[in-house]
C-alpha cells in the first residue's frame, strides 16, 4: 500500500536519541550506580578468589559470579540494575513525544513511524551496550590488575556471551517499557507499570511458581515420576520470567561445569566425569533455548509496541 522505505530517517533518530540518552542526567545516575556496583563486586570477588587461586581453571569468570557477604556478585548486581536502566531509558519513549508536542513535528518530516520507534529502541540498546561494554572492559582490566592472571580465549568468549545475554535481557525490559510508553499517555503511569512487571518477576514469581508446582499439582512423595513432573511444571512456570531465563544463561555461560539447566536423571550422568568443564560451544548449546526465548520475547514485545503506536492518532 504505502511506498518508500521504512528505514528512511532511522539513522537520524538513532543518533539524536543516543545523544539524548548519553547526556541525560538519568543515565549519569545509573552509570554511577553501575560503576559502584562493578567496583564493589570486583573488589570483594578478588579478595575471595585470591584464597582459592590456582585451583580453578576459570578463575577469570569467577570475577562475575563470586560474591562475599553482604555484597552480591557483579552478575547479580546487573540482574538488578539492567531492568531499571532499560525501563529508565524507555518508559517515556512514545508518550514523551506526545507530551512535548514534538510528535507531529517529527512525523511531518519524511519518515515513517517505524523509523521513530525502531530508532528509539536501537538507541536505548546502544546506550546500554556502550555502558555495559565499558563496564566489561573495566572489570576485565581490574581483574588483570588484582589477580595478575590473563584470561584464556575461552574465558573471553564466555564473558562476551555473558555480555550478549545481558543485552538481550536489557532488550526485554526496554521493549516492555516502550510498549507501555505507547499504551499509556502519562510517563509516570508507564514507568510504574513497567516497574510493577519487574517487581512481579523479581519478587513474586517464586510464589507464583510454587503455587503452580505445589499448590495445583500434588505429587505423591513416593512416586519419582510424579515428582519429576512436578519439578518440570515448576521449571516451566519459572521460565516464563525473563529473570529466570537470564539467570540460566549466566549459569550456562559463566559456570563451564554446568551440563544441564533442568533436572538431571541418574541415567543421564552415566559415563560423565563429574566436575569437568564443558567446551564453550556445548555450553552455548545448553543455553540456546534460553537465548531464543529472550530474543523472541524482545521481538514480540516490540511488535506489540509497534502495533499500538501505528494505531494512534498523531494528534495528542
Amino acid at each position, binding site marked *: 500500500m504505502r511506498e518508500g522505505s521504512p528505514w528512511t530517517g532511522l539513522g537520524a533518530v538513532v543518533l539524536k536519541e543516543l545523544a539524548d540518552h548519553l547526556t541525560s542526567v538519568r543515565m549519569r545516575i545509573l552509570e554511577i550506580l553501575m560503576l559502584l556496583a562493578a567496583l564493589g563486586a570486583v573488589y570483594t570477588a578478588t579478595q575471595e578468589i585470591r584464597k582459592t587461586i590456582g585451583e580453578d581453571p576459570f578463575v577469570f569468570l569467577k570475577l562475575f559470579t563470586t560474591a562475599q557477604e553482604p555484597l552480591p556478585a557483579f552478575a547479580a548486581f546487573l540482574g538488578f540494575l539492567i531492568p531499571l536502566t532499560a525501563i529508565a531509558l524507555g518508559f517515556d519513549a512514545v508518550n514523551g513525544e506526545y507530551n512535548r508536542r514534538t510528535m507531529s*513535528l517529527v512525523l511531518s518530516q519524511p519518515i515513517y513511524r517505524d523509523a521513530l520507534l525502531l530508532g528509539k529502541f536501537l538507541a536505548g540498546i546502544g546506550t546500554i551496550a556502550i555502558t555495559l561494554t565499558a563496564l566489561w572492559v573495566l572489570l576485565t582490566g581490574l581483574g588483570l590488575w588484582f589477580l595478575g592472571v590473563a584470561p584464556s580465549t575461552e574465558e573471553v568468549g564466555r564473558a562476551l556471551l555473558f555480555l550478549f545475554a545481558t543485552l538481550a535481557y536489557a532488550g526485554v525490559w526496554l521493549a516492555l517499557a516502550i510498549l507501555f510508553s505507547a499504551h499509556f499517555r502519562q510517563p509516570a503511569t508507564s514507568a510504574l507499570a513497567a516497574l510493577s512487571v519487574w517487581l512481579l518477576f523479581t519478587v513474586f514469581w517464586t510464589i507464583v511458581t510454587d503455587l503452580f508446582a505445589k499448590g495445583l499439582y500434588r505429587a505423591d512423595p513416593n512416586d519419582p515420576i510424579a515428582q519429576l513432573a512436578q519439578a518440570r511444571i515448576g521449571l516451566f512456570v519459572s521460565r516464563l520470567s525473563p529473570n529466570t531465563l537470564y539467570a540460566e544463561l549466566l549459569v550456562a555461560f559463566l559456570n563451564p561445569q554446568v551440563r544441564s539447566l533442568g533436572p538431571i536423571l541418574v541415567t543421564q550422568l552415566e559415563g560423565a566425569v563429574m566436575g569437568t568443564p564443558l567446551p564453550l560451544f556445548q555450553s552455548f548449546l545448553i543455553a540456546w533455548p534460553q537465548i531464543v526465548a529472550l530474543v523472541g520475547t524482545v521481538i514480540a514485545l516490540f511488535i506489540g509496541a509497534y502495533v499500538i503506536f501505528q494505531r494512534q492518532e498523531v494528534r495528542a
Partner: protein
Amino acid sequence: MSALIETTDLTKRYGAVTAVQDLDLQLKAGEVFGLLGPNGSGKTTTILMLLGLTEPTSGTARVMGLDPARKPLEVKRRVGYLPDSVGFYDELSGRENLAYVARLNGLRAREASPAIEQVLNRMGLGNDVGDRAVGAYSRGMRQRLGLAAILLKQVQIAILDEPTLGLDPEAAHEFLEMIRDLRAEGMVVMISSHLLHQVQAVCDRVGLFLKGKMVLEGTVEGLSESVLGGAFRIHVESRGQNVDAILRDVPSVAKVSAMGLNKYRLEAREDCRAAVSKRVIAAGAELLSLTLERPSLDEVYSRYFQEVRHDA
C-alpha cells in the same frame, strides 16, 4: 496551472463521528488559503489527511499530484507543516532542533549548517538566540522556529495550523507579515485558524468550516458580498440639525441608525461617502468623521450561521 492541493469528496469518520465530510478543495500556485472555522470543525483532520498522517475514510487527496495515503514520504518531503502549538525539544537549542529536522530530511551536516544559519537569521533567531535552549523561548519565538524548520526544507507548500494562536497582537502581526513575505516568494500557504479577523488580512481565499463541512468558500470580499448582501456600512459622525433626515435623503442609502450622540451608521448599496459628505456640508452641519467599515469575516461567519439556524 493545475492545483497543487486537490481533494475530492474527502471524508474522515471516527466511529460514528464524521470529522470531515465530502471536502472538495483546490489550492493553486501562489495563493494563501485560509481554512477557517471553530475548534473541532475538521480543519486539523483535513491537514493530517493531506500529509498522509491519517488515512481518509473515503475520497481522495492529491498534493502536487501525489497521493498522501500511498506516498507519504514524497508528500512530506514537499510540504512544510507547522503543527498546532508546535513543540520542540526543550533541552536542545534552536540550532540543534533544526539540525535534527535537517537530518530527518536527509540533509548532511555540511549542507545543513549554512542553511540553518540562513533561516535562523531570517526568522530573527540568529547568533546567540539560536544557541539558547528552546525551553527558554517565548511562544512567538517557537512559532518562528517552526517557520524556520519549514524554510529549511525548501518546500513550495507550507501548511500552518493555528499559527497565531496564543501570540500577542504584536507577535501575531509580525508572524502574518512573514507569511506575506513567503507568499511574495511564490510559496503556497494554507493557514488553519479560528481567529478569523486575524488571518483574513493575509488570505487570498478562505474556506469556512462547520462541523466537518466546508460551507462557504471564496475571497473575503466575495463572501461578504454574498452573505452580507453586498451592503456597505458607513459610519458618520456629524453635528447639526436633522442630520438624520439629511443622511436618509442620500440616494442608495437604505437605512440609517443612530449609534449614539452625533453618530450614525448607514447601510448603503454602494460606497456613497462622497455624496454623504457633500450633502452634510451643504445642509450646514459639521462633518466630524466618515469611515467605510471593512467587511469582517467574523461578521460573515456569524451572519451566515444565523441564517442557517433560522432556516433549520
